[in-house]
């Protein structure tokens, strides 16, 4: 399979490394408004073509599928342009900035008979997949209450992530991961009430707390936090009639280093990277394009995760309790 990448940020380069690593895939070209040093390195080391616009990349006949890893508000028009150019599309999460955009992307994929997938990588994180499997196989009985949190430092002010109209802020960056996992595990949401500190426009601080009620009866609390001084912490706890499943990403790493300062000490990279959830996700997408099974999250799943997360933002903004039918329609 022959790929192109639109975007030159961190995620774009992660995807690029997978295309170069996978024995049966090639990375033909990258496109970004400004040539990033990372792109030039790809040209130098792997002969990857570089363009300063997506249209030129999309016009090439030697590209079967494109990865879109650009600011969120550009996902929709780039994906739709790519689909019309006959390319399959993988788009980084969130699927789009708005639900209407997301719907248009899925409709275009159908109309052009191309495949589109959104990266919901948490479904490939082994601890979240393991928890999902334990819970859905009945290991803790009937689930009553769930808690998730995802917390890290605020993006730098000059970053597009910090531009909420473009990115959707902390909700579309962090919260959507846990929302997607919750919908995957517990089914559709019935009711949402949320509070956030977004409207206070604090420099370098953002966060949201929400309560979700699912049609299955599960009550969930979710937190997304962009006010940590440093580090990245995710927690998950689900309690049912027969017990609890819990995980915290800072527990029990399998290998870790405490170096002396002013030495060159550093851990070697994970050369095998067999567990890398992003790589497993890439392989699942690639196999799907070759006629293999549908990946763990469907495009419709990603649209639901987007709609639910944006409903949380709306509830926090309006102070309203939002209710939904089991089909996901707002009521």
């Amino acid at each position, binding site marked *: 399979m022959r790929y192109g990448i639109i975007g030159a940020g961190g995620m774009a380069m992660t995807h690029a490394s997978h295309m170069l690593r996978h024995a049966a895939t090639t990375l033909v070209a990258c496109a970004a408004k400004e040539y990033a040093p990372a792109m030039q390195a790809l040209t130098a080391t792997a002969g990857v073509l570089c363009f300063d616009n997506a249209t030129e990349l999309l016009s090439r006949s030697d590209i079967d599928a494109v990865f879109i890893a650009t600011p969120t508000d550009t996902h929709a028009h780039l994906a739709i342009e790519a689909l019309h150019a006959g390319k399959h599309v993988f788009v980084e999460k969130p699927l789009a900035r708005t639900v209407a955009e997301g719907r248009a992307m899925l409709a275009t994929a159908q109309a052009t008979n191309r495949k589109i997938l959104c990266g919901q990588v948490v479904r490939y994180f082994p*601890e979240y997949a393991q*928890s999902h499997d334990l819970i859905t196989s009945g*290991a803790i009985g009937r689930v009553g209450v769930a808690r998730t949190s995802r917390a890290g430092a605020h993006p730098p002010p000059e970053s597009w992530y910090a531009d909420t109209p473009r990115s959707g802020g902390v909700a579309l960056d962090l919260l959507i991961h846990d929302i997607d996992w919750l919908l995957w595990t517990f089914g559709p949401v019935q009711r949402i009430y949320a509070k956030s500190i977004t409207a206070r426009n604090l420099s370098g601080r953002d966060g949201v707390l929400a309560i979700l009620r699912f049609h299955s009866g599960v009550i969930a609390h979710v937190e997304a936090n962009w006010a940590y001084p440093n580090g990245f912490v995710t927690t998950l706890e689900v309690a049912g009639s027969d017990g609890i499943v*819990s*995980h915290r990403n800072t527990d029990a790493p399998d*290998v870790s280093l405490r170096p002396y300062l002013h*030495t060159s000490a550093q851990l070697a990279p*994970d050369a095998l990277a*067999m*567990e890398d959830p992003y790589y497993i996700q890439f392989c699942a997408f690639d196999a799907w394009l070759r006629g293999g099974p549908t990946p763990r999250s469907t495009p419709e799943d990603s649209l639901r995760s987007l709609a639910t997360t944006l409903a949380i933002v709306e509830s926090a903004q309006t102070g309203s309790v939002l209710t939904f039918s089991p089909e996901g329609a707002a009521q």
Partner: protein
Amino acid sequence: MTTDTIRIGIAGVAHGHAHSYARAGKSLSGVQVVGVHDHDQRRGQEFADHYGLPFFATIAALLATCDTLMIASENSYHHPYAMQAAAANIPTLCEKPLASNVADARAMVQAFASAGVQLGTAFPVRYSPAVRRLRDTIVNGSLGDTLMVRATNRGTYPGGWFGDPTLAGGGAIMDHTVHVTDLVRWIWGREIVEVYAEGDTMLHDIPVDDVGMLLLTLDDGMVVSLDPSWSRPAGVYPTWGDVTMEVTTQNGIVNLDTFGPHVDLYQKSTAQVRWVGYGVNFDAFMIDDWINAVRTGGPAPISGVDGLRAVEVVDAAYRSVRSHRPERVQ
């Protein structure tokens, strides 16, 4: 060397790895498990029936149908099974410890060397991504010299034949010294030359040792301590055991917890707390690597000599337990 399906024979089903081998036959492409033998016919037949495999009443009959033998019997049966496989020129992957005593292990290595056929030892922990990262980190040299290592390979008492001195050849020290010994030899590329050990039966009513503590000295002076005890309380401790190292180097401290990543499961109906691991399946990588060596005729990824060296360390440990002195590895 054959390029089509590799036919696996399973010799002995007393060790849990027999299940890994049987499942690998179903999940790996180009591999087929052709049958099972066990000196305990009833146990072997049950295992064979469970996986829908033929049972062979003799090792000789099984060897006549397979390209590679995988031994997962009690320790004391490794030697007779392996010697027959060597005589039949069948590459053999043997469960650890390679044998229940040094003489048997040496004879096995010698027999396969004479036959010019691969003998491998099943040390799956080498396939842990965390262990590979630690090894790469040490080999890269950014940490400077390794000064000392504090290791554990603790577990729950496995029961059954593991507590039978005739079948197992020893207790916790026999069972749990060899993994870390092999990791240390592989990661640092040095040999263990001296062992001091304490060991006894303190926690269970069994005729083999269930607690122990070892101090190993390498040929460059590096020191490693190892706790191989069956000290994790069954039914209460949240997992079977561990393989950990704290590595003190010139430039920092590295911690390895091979089976560390887990989800906590608190379960009312079983009155248990469990750590449900989500790491990769080391066994599958080990089997894949072994099959590849059989297919290409290449060297065993983890050799019989590697297995023998670990048994020699066990032997020195038991001698030390009796003599109350540090003992040379021979």
